[in-house]
């Protein structure tokens, strides 16, 4: 959680210094949800996120330097600089996005869960991989959400749908956009258990996550978890965040998940304060190092522009000289000379 917070704060700094551009959506305040769920997953489990995906990537194990380099648009980023803030992918850590349109990732997550079930039942592999899909309150009014709840319940897919309800979709209050604001209640009509949890308390989230993930792993099907959380910053770094009531912000600031956990640890004397301070220092250094790495990494060369458009570019036919046609200067179908 601390890594997530420090990382996001550093992102804001770097953005205002002109090191990263575009739309950057920070996760400050919601760390409990990411940590609570993802830290319970194995490397083989899949995580699907939205554009607010930096901390999901970090929780899943993507190195901070790879994420920072990706944000800087450098070739050493996790997606070679081609994805950016909103499209974090990692094959190694099974993070399949990073999607810019809301709701777009939910079907992809459903597909990953389908894959897991297929492996178990058709390919007869011992596969109990679980998929966790994160999305927000605004997405819960989108058709793809309901279509996927239906399909996941129909085929009992090993998936957990996690709603990070931070009450705001840019400037649209959840209560102004939704006829029935209780999202967890939308699971049972599809036959999916709906759970409501306080998303500012990482231990509570973890409890619920344990049960939901175990349920999916057993093959009992999907779960819908609504986490009440809040984002301390605006929707993105370009959002002036004028609509939200300062009282509301203050209320949730006082329930900062990191501070809450720290107090809990110190109250119950689980870990000495010096150790916590050491962790904080380590994280700081890690984030600094990530920035240095990203800064010193090279920007993508021009030759990278047309790489990876197709997985199989060699299949673009062979000319009379025996060379691939896309290498032919006269071949202008999308692989023109740049």
């Amino acid at each position, binding site marked *: 959680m601390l890594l997530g917070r420090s990382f996001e704060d550093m992102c804001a700094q770097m953005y205002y210094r002109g090191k990263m551009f575009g739309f950057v959506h920070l996760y400050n305040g919601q760390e409990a949800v990411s940590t609570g769920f993802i830290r319970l997953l194995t490397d083989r489990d*899949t995580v*699907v996120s939205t554009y607010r995906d930096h901390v999901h990537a970090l929780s899943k194990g993507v190195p901070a330097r790879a994420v920072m380099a990706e944000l800087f648009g450098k070739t050493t*980023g996790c*997606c*070679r600089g*081609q*994805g950016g803030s909103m*499209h974090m*992918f990692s*094959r190694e850590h099974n993070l*399949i*996005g*990073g*999607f810019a349109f809301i709701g*777009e990732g*939910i*079907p*992809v*997550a*459903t*597909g*990953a*869960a*389908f*894959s*897991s*079930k*297929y492996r178990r*039942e*058709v*390919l007869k592999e011992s596969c109990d991989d679980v998929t966790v899909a994160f999305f927000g309150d605004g997405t819960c009014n989108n*058709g*793809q959400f309901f*279509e*996927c709840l*239906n*399909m996941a319940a*129909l*085929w009992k897919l090993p998936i957990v749908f996690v709603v990070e309800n931070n009450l705001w979709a840019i400037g649209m209050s959840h209560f102004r956009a939704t006829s029935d604001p209780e999202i967890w209640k939308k699971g049972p009509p599809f036959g999916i258990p709906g759970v409501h949890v306080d998303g500012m308390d990482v231990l509570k989230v973890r409890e619920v996550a344990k049960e939901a993930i175990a349920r999916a792993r057993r093959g009992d099907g999907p779960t819908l978890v609504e986490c009440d959380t809040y984002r301390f910053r605006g929707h993105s770094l370009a959002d002036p965040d004028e609509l939200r009531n300062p009282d509301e912000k203050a209320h949730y600031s006082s329930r900062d998940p990191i501070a809450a956990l720290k107090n809990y640890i110190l109250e119950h004397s689980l870990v000495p304060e010096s150790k916590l301070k050491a962790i904080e220092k380590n994280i700081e250094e890690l984030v600094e190092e990530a920035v240095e790495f990203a800064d010193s990494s090279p920007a993508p060369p021009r030759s990278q522009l047309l*790489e*990876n*458009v*197709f*997985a*199989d570019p*060699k*299949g*673009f*036919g*062979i000319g*009379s000289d*025996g060379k691939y*046609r*896309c290498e032919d200067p*006269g*071949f*202008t*179908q*999308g*692989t023109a000379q740049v």
Partner: protein
Amino acid sequence: MAAVLQAAALLMGFQSGIERFRLRSVLRSSPVPLERALVVRADGRLSAISGVMPRSVRLIPNAVAAKADTTGTSAASKPGHELLLFEALREGLDEEMERDPRVCVMGEDVGHYGGSYKVTRGLASKYGDLRILDTPIAENSFTGMGIGAAMTGLRPVIEGMNMGFLLLAFNQISNNCGMLHYTSGGQFTIPVVIRGPGGVGRQLGAEHSQRLESYFQSIPGLQMVACSTPYNAKGLMKAAIRSENPVVLFEHVLLYNLKERIPDEEYMLCLEEAEMVRPGEHVTILTYSRMRYHVMQAAKTLINKGYDPEVIDIRSLKPFDLHTIGNSVKKTHRVLIVEECMRTGGIGASLRSAIIDNFWDYLDAPVMCLSSQDVPTPYAGTLEEWTVVQPVQIVAAVEQLCR
């Protein structure tokens, strides 16, 4: 990394006088790396890409179609087997599903119902309900599901009951299917095949008569092919499934009942190659899908009038086979494109600009393009007939070009 499979087949067009239809295809029974692929050239020579001829090559010199001098032989002694186009698609799909257990089908009514055009009939009882998945009516979501499954190791074939329904899946096809390989920096491949019947049928109304190739063609990262005969339907289906790229396979509602004799042996076609239907000298006619048959009908009239058209079924809508097309343009210097897409922003428009960009110096006349009218396809039979290009118009266009 999965081995890239490549098999090339070139159809030798039939000469108008002799009516011999010779076919050469190179088959491989197991995947080989591309470096050892064999290509049969238009002039009949064989060449290997790396310069080294592979040791084991099975050449099928003759297959398919009747020859004029075999009227005495009975059907049983002719090589190959006869079937309809939708059965050819099913055969291709069946063979690939048997070969690779990761291949699965998703779509509406593909399982128990057997597919709206019976392409998947019988497959559900053979492979089970999970491999031939009957989905609820949620195109965007099940297309996205197919993409997610492809990213995590499966090879789904996603069927749109009618191609037009895939407009609902445009979000997933454009943003995820086409783009994710690039956006993820090459980490994830999306080996899906998206297929379905499209095109103008018999009075199906505007929304069931859509030609999506024009809408999908700009999506970066998506490969598109259109089949037109049982032979190329099966070959393209197999190649599309084995390809690591996301491929959209366009079938046509009116072509499902075409009958043809296809080889018994396994064969695959190259996704990016065009098909020489009829070689000629006077004019190059480029077409695909159903319009191929209108062109061939017009060709009969043109031959009687003394013209010698070269007809090429471009098959690969993205990328265009500029090699075959270019060779043809360099020979005939006149180009007519006949397509079923609408005039505005259709495949013909892109093909025209590609030809002008690359082969301007070889053209003796402006590139002509016959496309459907820019109207929602009307229900009335007469109006619908006038929406698409008819053989009479093709004949008139060639006469104008060759003036």
